[in-house]
């Protein structure tokens, strides 16, 4: 083993290699590694956030759905109520109308009866007078027997 100038040459070479590595090799690689690490960390946290957001929106969707259902239920309820009301109102108005018609009819009937009776009464009175005059064979003074006739008519 002979030591010679090679020793110095090797040392110089070694230092040059270290210098080159330190200047041009190590920093870019380590920086790239650090940058990738940061990227991955960012990506992971973004994924985590997205997951969280998804969870939130799921909750929100469920809430909306529930609200919508409740609202629909309410609307249906209201519509049913309203329909019942309308039917009720229609029934009531139909009933009153019917009653009104019946009443009017009744009144007319009454009136007709009344009128017919009045007529009949008048006719009966004249008939009675005529009958009586035939019986008596004499003219009854209608005017003299006015009270009697009236009394008779009222009795009919």
């Amino acid at each position, binding site marked *: 083993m002979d030591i010679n100038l090679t020793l110095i040459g090797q040392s110089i070479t070694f230092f040059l290699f270290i210098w*080159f590595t330190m200047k041009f090799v190590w920093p870019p690689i380590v920086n790239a590694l650090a940058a990738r690490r940061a990227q991955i960390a960012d990506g992971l946290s973004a994924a985590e956030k997205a997951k969280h957001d998804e969870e939130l929106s799921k909750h929100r969707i469920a809430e909306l759905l529930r609200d919508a259902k409740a609202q629909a239920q309410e609307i249906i309820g209201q519509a049913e109520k309203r329909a019942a009301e309308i039917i009720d109102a229609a029934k009531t108005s139909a009933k009153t109308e019917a009653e009104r018609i019946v009443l009017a009819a009744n009144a007319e009937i009454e009136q007709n009866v009344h009128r017919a009776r009045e007529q009949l009464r008048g006719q009966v009175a004249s008939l009675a007078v005529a009958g009586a005059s035939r019986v008596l064979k004499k003219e009854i003074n209608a005017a003299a027997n006015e009270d009697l006739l009236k009394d008779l008519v009222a009795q009919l």
Partner: protein
Amino acid sequence: MSSEQHAITSAEYIRHHLTNWTYGKFPDGHWGFAHDAAQAKSMGFMAIHVDTMLWSIATGLLFLFFFHQAARKATAGIPGGLQNFVEWVCEFIDTNVRGSFTARNDLVAPMALTIFMWVFLMNFMDLLPVDWIPLIAGQVGEHAYNMDPHHVFMKIVPSTDPNATFGMSLAIFALMIVYSFKNKGVAGFFAELTLHPFSSKNTLLQIIFVPINFVLEFVSLIAKPLSLSLRLYGNMYAGEMIFILIALMFGGGFIMQLAGGLLQWGWAVFHILIITLQAFIFMTLAIVYMDMAHQVPHEQH
């Protein structure tokens, strides 16, 4: 083993594989390539192992090229295949640095990455069959430069050259010293060397303790770069030696060749573990040493 002009002995074969391609100053003053191990030795310190430099720089550039390619196009989006691999390695290094290094220093992680990848690739050259590249180099030398192929030396595993491992460990040692001075101050650094592990309230005892402490701590300080480089060198040298010894079997008969092939395969598989482990150990210890250089004691003993 190759069939050349004259048959070579096993010893020559091994020696050939263990000799570096050396360029240096001959004793007579002129500079040139050594033709054999003896010439290389005569050059002393004023020599350079061309193969070690070549292959270590080639593997280093390979690492830097691919990693730079990945770093240039690095995106925080979906990574491609190369970027994926590079990020995987960088995260592995980063985890280790975070685990062992407690202070803040932007140098340490790139240093650890460089060490790990570079040492791994240098060690990886060991897995290439021991004769391939030396043979090619020999042929190139013979035909292009009209050289004797026995005098073309090509040791392709830089980490089996102590110059390479010491070069790195001494560089790390220098960084340790620099950062120790920077973080602890010169006084703090020497206090660590001399007031530890033995200390006393008694001034006289303390004066006696100082040299003892210094010897202990200085040895442990020096042992760090030594053990760091020798561990890697020893492991890789031994592994390479075993590959060379197995390769010797290819000179025998068919049975020997078959056994050699199986052994080489088995050792290479085992060696995959060793080269990775050695690269990892080298890196981890470098990180730990840098951490020690950054530790400022809260209380002086």
